[in-house]
């Protein structure tokens, strides 16, 4: 395996693993607050899947040569990155629906572009991840549809959440670096460029939002005659800042991870040691 390839691949998978792990944090508070038993179970199962995905991905990174403890060290020290969307706070039950529906939808598009990854262990995991995430989107859609057919207050929860999450969603697939300049595409790790992924997301989901009578906070958002979506260009510098730890909730989340890891450090010692 060429060195350059191994390095890029390891970093890519590590960021993916970090994202799954950090992705748990915005959502876990809502397990307690879930308003029905079914929602409580579905949300717990969804978050469990994300932890499971982190496990699968860190195993790939470990087999590529970097132990998971080193990955966690880097994550907690702010030396490694995770996806932008997990740097934002979740404020209401509307956020829970929007995340499960649209953030997971954006993620599935990226994940599908990894199914043909040149590195087989990663490609195989992506199949399992895509299969498991199919229920997340349905759960999200179910939550949203129930809210928009409920009270005015419940509808408002969704609209307000959309207004806050749209900007991070537009940045999710990354800046529009052309596919032939994208090392991840060059190395056949992903099979789709960033802009293509974003267009696919817009094509699939904007109409789903509009058909519910909900609005999106971008006056320029429209589908041109040739089928491409036009939109207000996101501030890519802001994305860079967020992803390197300067998002609204980044510090709090990293601190939480650091604390909880310190709490359980003794368990690894107790469990790794030879029996007394």
């Amino acid at each position, binding site marked *: 395996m060429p060195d350059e390839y191994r390095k890029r691949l390891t970093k890519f998978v590590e960021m993916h693993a970090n994202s799954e792990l950090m992705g748990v944090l915005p959502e876990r508070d809502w397990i307690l607050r879930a308003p029905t038993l079914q929602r409580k179970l579905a949300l717990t199962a969804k978050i469990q899947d994300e932890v*499971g995905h982190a*496990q*699968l991905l860190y*195993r790939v990174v*470990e*087999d590529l040569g970097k132990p998971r403890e080193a990955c966690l060290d880097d994550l907690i020290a702010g030396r490694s990155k995770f996806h932008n969307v997990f740097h934002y706070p979740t404020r209401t039950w509307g956020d829970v629906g929007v995340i499960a529906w649209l953030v997971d939808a954006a993620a599935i598009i990226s994940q599908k572009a990894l199914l043909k990854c040149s590195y087989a262990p990663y490609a*195989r*995991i992506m199949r*399992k991840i895509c299969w*498991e995430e199919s229920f997340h989107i349905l759960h999200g859609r179910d939550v949203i549809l129930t809210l928009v057919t409920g009270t005015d207050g419940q509808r408002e929860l969704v609209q307000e959440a959309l207004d806050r999450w749209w900007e991070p969603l537009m940045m999710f697939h990354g800046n529009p670096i052309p596919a032939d300049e994208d090392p991840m595409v060059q190395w056949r790790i992903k099979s789709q460029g960033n802009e293509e992924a974003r267009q696919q997301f817009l094509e699939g989901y904007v109409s789903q939002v509009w058909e519910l009578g909900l609005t999106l906070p971008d006056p320029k958002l429209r589908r041109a005659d040739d089928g491409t979506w036009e939109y207000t260009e996101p501030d890519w510098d802001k994305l860079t800042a967020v992803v390197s730890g300067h998002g609204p909730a980044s510090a709090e989340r990293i601190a939480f991870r650091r604390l909880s890891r310190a709490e359980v450090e003794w368990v690894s010692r107790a*469990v*790794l*040691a*030879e029996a007394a």
Partner: protein
Amino acid sequence: MTAVYEVFRRERAGSAMQHAGSIVAPDERFAEIYAREQYGRRGESDALWLVPREAVNEIGEFVDEFDLKYRRVDGYSIKERLKEARERAGAAPAQPGG
């Protein structure tokens, strides 16, 4: 004590066991529980095999010094000979028995 365990699974009775992934566990008791959860909590597996990675004997190097084409399909090119044989047969009357 802590080890990597390879997990194999099959979708339904009668299908082949396939390598599914791996888990890290303090011992076999833990490995069994973890494998059940990671590879079976949705009832997606009919059965699992759990094997400590160190028990797997990987064979990766094959000696290939001399020409082995005589026992492979790519060692045979019959095009020229077939053409010659057909031309030869075409010069004689086309009837069985001669």
